[in-house]
C-alpha cells in the first residue's frame, strides 16, 4: 500500500515539476506510437473494409490468419525486426537498429492485425445492412469501402484506439529493437522496466500512472474530436 501511495506522489511530483526527462520520454512515446498507429490505420482500415466487401476463395484463411496474428508475441516481433535490421541482417545497411524508426516498424507489425481485425468486424456488420442499397446504386468497390469507412467511423475509432493502447503499453519488442538508449530511444514503458529493475518501484509506478493518464487523454480527445464532425449515422 505504501508503495502505491509513493508511486502516486512520485507521479504528481514529476508532473508538477515538469521533469525534463519525463517530457522527453513522454513525447517520444507519443511520437513512436502515433506514427505507428497512422501507418497501421492506413494499412489496416482499408484492408478491413476490403475484406468486408470482397468475396474471394482464400477470404476465410486470410481473416483467420489476421485474427491469429493479433496474438503475435511482441518479443518475437522484436527479435525478427532486430534480425532484419541488424548489421548482419538483410536491412543492416540502413543503420536503423536502435532508432525510433525500428521501434515504429515493430509496433506497426504488432498492431496492424488488431486494427484490421476490429475494422473488418465492424464493417462486415455495416455491410450486411448497406449491401442491397450500395449494390442497387451501382457503387464501385472503392465507393463501397469509402462509404463503409465513413459511416463506420466510430467503430474505426475503436479499432484505432485498441491499436494505440496495445502500442503505447508495449515493452518487449521496442526494448530489443530500440535498446532503451537514454536520450535516443527511451520511452515510458522501457523506462518503467528500467526503474523496476533498479528497485525504484515508486518512480516506476509514477511513470506507469502517467502512461495510463496519457492513454486516457488520447482516448477522450479522439472521442471529442469525432463528435465535433457533422452529425453522422449515430
Amino acid at each position, binding site marked *: 500500500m505504501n508503495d502505491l501511495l509513493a508511486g502516486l506522489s512520485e507521479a504528481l511530483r514529476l508532473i508538477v515539476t515538469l521533469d525534463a526527462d519525463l517530457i522527453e520520454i513522454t513525447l517520444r512515446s*507519443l511520437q513512436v506510437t502515433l506514427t505507428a498507429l497512422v501507418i497501421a490505420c492506413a494499412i489496416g482500415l482499408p484492408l478491413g473494409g476490403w475484406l468486408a466487401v470482397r468475396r474471394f476463395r482464400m477470404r476465410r484463411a486470410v481473416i483467420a490468419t489476421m485474427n491469429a496474428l493479433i496474438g503475435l508475441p511482441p518479443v518475437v516481433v522484436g527479435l525478427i525486426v532486430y534480425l532484419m535490421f541488424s548489421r548482419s541482417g538483410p536491412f543492416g545497411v540502413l543503420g536503423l537498429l536502435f532508432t*525510433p*524508426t525500428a521501434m515504429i516498424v515493430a509496433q506497426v507489425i504488432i498492431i496492424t492485425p488488431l486494427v484490421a481485425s476490429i475494422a473488418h468486424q465492424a464493417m462486415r456488420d455495416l455491410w450486411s445492412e448497406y449491401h442491397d442499397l450500395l449494390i442497387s446504386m451501382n457503387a464501385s468497390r472503392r465507393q463501397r469501402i469509402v462509404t463503409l469507412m465513413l459511416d463506420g467511423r466510430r467503430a474505426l475509432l475503436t479499432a484505432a484506439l485498441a491499436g494505440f493502447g496495445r502500442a503505447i503499453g508495449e515493452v518487449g519488442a521496442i526494448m530489443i529493437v530500440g535498446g532503451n538508449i537514454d536520450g535516443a530511444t527511451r520511452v515510458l514503458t522501457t523506462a518503467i522496466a528500467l526503474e523496476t529493475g533498479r528497485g525504484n518501484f515508486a518512480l516506476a509506478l509514477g511513470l506507469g500512472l502517467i502512461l495510463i493518464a496519457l492513454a486516457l487523454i488520447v482516448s477522450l480527445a479522439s472521442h471529442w474530436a469525432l463528435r465535433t464532425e457533422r452529425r453522422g449515422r449515430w
Partner: protein
Amino acid sequence: MLLRAILLCLLPVPALAETVKLAVTTSFRNSGLADVLLPRIASDTGLDVQMIVVGTGQALRLGAAGDVDAVLVHARAAEEAFIAAGHAPHRRPIMYNDFVVVGPLDDPAGTAGAATAVEAFTRIAESRAAFVSRGDDSGTHTAERAIWRDAGLHPEGAWYRPVGAGMGAALNTAVGLEAYVLSDRASWSNFGNKGAMRITFQGDPALFNQYAYLPISGDKHDAVAVDGAARLEDWLTSNAARALIDGYRVVGEQVFTFNATR
C-alpha cells in the same frame, strides 16, 4: 498550434554529436555509475555514448553482429573467445568491483561463517535454501557457474531458480522469495528494494569482478565507429575517468576501483 506540436514530435531529432553505441551489462547500468560518466564523456570528448543495456552474452552477440561499436562486459573467458574469433582487436581492463552473496537477514544457510565463496555456496546447496540464479549467460551468471563448478556441485532442484533475467529483475525475485543470490556489489548497493535482505558473504578473492572494454573490429563491418570507440577507450583509461570511477559512492561506499593502464 496542436498540429505544429504533433509535426514537431514526428520529425526525427538531428544527431548533433558523433555517437558511439556501447553495449553494457545490466549490473553496470544498475550501479548508477553510467549516469555520472556519460555527461562527463560528452563534455570532454564530444562523444554521444548511447548505452544498450543487456547481459554480457547478448552484448557480445550485438558486438559480433556489428550492431554496437564497443562493449563493456565482465566475463574474461567469453571476452578472449570473442577476440580469438576476430570480433575485437583487444580487451582493455577498465575497473573492477566484486561479487557478493546476498541473502535473508537471518542467513538460514549460515553463509556468513564460510571461509570461501565455494564453502558459502556449498552450505546453501546442503541446506537447500532457495537460490536465485541469473540464468542468462551474463557475466554474473558465468561467475556463479564457476563457483558451483569449483565446489563440484551441479545445482538443481526446487531450491535452485534460474530466472533468465537481468540483475535488477533477479534481485527483485530474490527479495520476493527471500532467496540467496549472487550480485555485483554496485548493483546491490544501489538497489532500491532491499526488503529483508543483506550481504551475507563477501571478500573472497574468487569473487573478483573485472570489467573490460572491447572496441569492435572494423574489419567485418564497415559501419562500426572505430574512431569514436578508440576515443572512448582513451577517455575511459584517462585520469578523468579514474577520478570519477574511484570517487563514485553509493550510500557512502566506493563500489568500483579503476585499474586501467595507459
